């Protein structure tokens, strides 16, 4: 009983997916949101709700609704992307790197 109640507080026996995501911290992440913009930054934090914080991020946006269109970009720094508006999420991955830990 005692062992079980303490479990969540300890770091070690985490789920596989949480451990894998933890390894993604500091990697370049590319997040798309529903209004069509993209954010490129370093993965900094994620909570249970799926809200993501990116560091040193850059915003990319089209200058036109119709694609293809020229992109506009600007630096935003530390940003929080709520789960509700996130439409895609990618990380930068070397060609040589094993893909399996990144996909489910």
């Amino acid at each position, binding site marked *: 009983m005692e062992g079980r109640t303490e479990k969540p507080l300890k770091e070690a026996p*985490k*789920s596989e*997916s*949480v451990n*894998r*995501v*933890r390894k993604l*911290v500091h990697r*370049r992440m*590319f997040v*798309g*949101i529903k*209004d*069509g*913009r*993209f*954010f*490129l930054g370093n993965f*900094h*934090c*994620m*909570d*249970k709700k*799926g809200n*993501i*914080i990116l560091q040193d991020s850059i915003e*990319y*946006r*089209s*200058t*036109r*609704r119709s*694609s293809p269109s020229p*992109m506009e970009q*600007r630096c*935003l*720094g*530390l*940003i*929080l*992307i*709520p*789960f*509700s*508006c996130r439409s895609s*999420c*990618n*990380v*930068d*991955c*070397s*060609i*040589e*790197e*094993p*893909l*399996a830990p*990144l*996909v*489910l």
Partner: protein
Amino acid sequence: MEAKPPPAAADEASTAVPDGRSSTIPSGENTVWVDVSLLLDAACRDLEDGELIHGDNFNLFAAMSALEIMDPKMDSGMVCKYYSVDEAIENGAAPVPISSDKTVDVRCTIDIMDHLLACEATWHKGHSVSQTVFSCIYLLRTDRTSSHVLLHSYCRIIRATCKAVISVVSDARTHEEEDLFTMSYGLPLSGDGDDKCLSVLNAVEETICRQLRACKAPSSRRKVLEDIEPLQTNLALEEGYCKALLCRLRFRKHFYHVLTCLRRPQGRGLELARKHIASCISELECILSSSEFLRTSASGACEDGLEDKTTASGCQPVGFDANLNSRLSAPTPPRAIQILSWNEAVKYFMRLLHDLDVLCSYSLDSSLESVLHFVVQFQKSQPDLVARAHLQLLLVQDGKLHGRDPVFAVITRAAALPEATRNHDIQKNEFIVQLGQLVINLLKILCTNSAWQRRKLGKIIQDWRVIYLQLEMAFKECGENSNVSNEENSIVKIFQHILVWVEEQTYWIASRFLILGFELELYSPNEYCMVYWYLYVALVKLAEKTHLKMAVTNGAGKRRGKKKRDTPKDVAKDYRIPPAVLFLQCQICLAEGLTMMLAALRNEHGILETRSPFNTEYERFIQHFELLQKASIPDHVSYPSFKESTTYARFSNILMYNYFKDAQRIVKEVKSSFSNEPDKLAELRRLEQVAEHNSIALNVISRVGTLDPSLKVSFEFNHHPYFATAVVKRS
């Protein structure tokens, strides 16, 4: 499991980004984008409540400052209706012409003009120019409107006006707290040929004048004028539209002239500016009266809620989108800006023009005393930024007063030194040069808004104190080295005069600092006692120094005067206290009377006690007067001296030395000396009223107070902006 991804898989991952945009935003060299959405979703399911995934450098406090995407209050990049100005134009958000129906086109053009006026007023009131005036798509791409002369000429004069206003405000640099005002990064503020905007506007005005004449002409003559094409197609509305347009165009023309005239060096354009201001005001009145016609001719405009509408007709204008530019307004968070209503905008411009008119009526007096008086008087109506910027540029140009009087000449005059001193070599003395800088700074500070002004005055008071000490040392050195040669003797005299004046000026600053606290409502009623006490000690010093300065001057005058004719009357005058000092004396009586009354109320009735659960009276004393205390203004004055003079205050004593009666007596005595100065006379009358009411209140409290414990005393500023009047009520 650990197999490397086949090239195809990697490709697939990279194209997982919607719209295939990853091609435009490349991943690193030899890297690809891999979709991790599903992995993140799985991790979210497995995370405990409140648990976070983060690295070692994570700091919750810092993370709180992250900009939240899609939060309308933080995310200025949110895509609203259009992605860009060009896209908005392509989608017909700002058509040229606005309508193929000439009548509708004219009506819409007038709406655009009106909305721009509202935007301009909103900008002047402290919002960014990019989200107000430059929310106009036509203004962002003026080249598009060249075929539409009416709109084009108006847009160009607006742009030129914005540029002129920005330049005034940024040159004056009085906008520290209002720094959004001049931020025009990325906006097309200057265009080719904007210098010709007035001639284009004049040509358009001329055309409309002819159209107006043509439509008003009797039908017999109309044939002669037939070569003139009417403004629009509905003849019944022709006159009304022509008139509505003319007053709008003329207002812009005169307003632009006002701005350029005010910028002429040494106030040379003030007289002409006044004429243009008068024209501006009369055109504004025409604009106001045109609203009835515009409202009735605009069919389909809703009648209700006309008060918030940004146009005279009440119609929504075409061609505006405040969100297109919102990303230009960084570093400020995006704000939903409420554009002032058209009525408020007209009111704002009326007020601005009135303030500028007051400015133009100013006589560019070389005496510092009257300059300070004028500025304080001008600031009483709390003018907005644009008027204040013009005031400052008028006062200080090229480091000289009004661009004309060298600072040293201003100082010698203020210090009541003979005219010849202004060329004395002493002006090269480093401390005198510094003093000159302080005077210029003081003038600039007095033109800022009250809050900023008070903060800055509190800071420069220290500088004035330091310069006084430095001058005093230099003066002593001079005195020691002097062999009583004539030349050195005169240097000693100059120093003497200047020292007295610097002290006087320092106490003037201190009193202004204290008084501004009332305007900004920084004092709570239970602090009035200490504030009036401090005001009292500062004013006593100010009166003392003013008197000393005048005595020194009169002394010098008398010696010289002996050579001239000296009537016995003049001699008698010397022994009287000068009216300027008596004026201060009157304020001193009020400040002292209020201090004592407040102290006695606290001591005897327990009203307005300074006890507070948060800080002690001493702490509040320091909070309010720290800057003055640091500069030892006045010398040897501190919290204990405040306590000492107020702890034993009793009504029986105050009645004996009735300060308010003294004030009333002085007012009566001194009134005749200010018969030529309506401002000061009005001030005296206000002081008299405060004295009278407080005198009565004092009697009531001391007679009834001891018998009736339910006595309620409050203080109001209904007769004077900073001398309170006691209101006594029985509950």
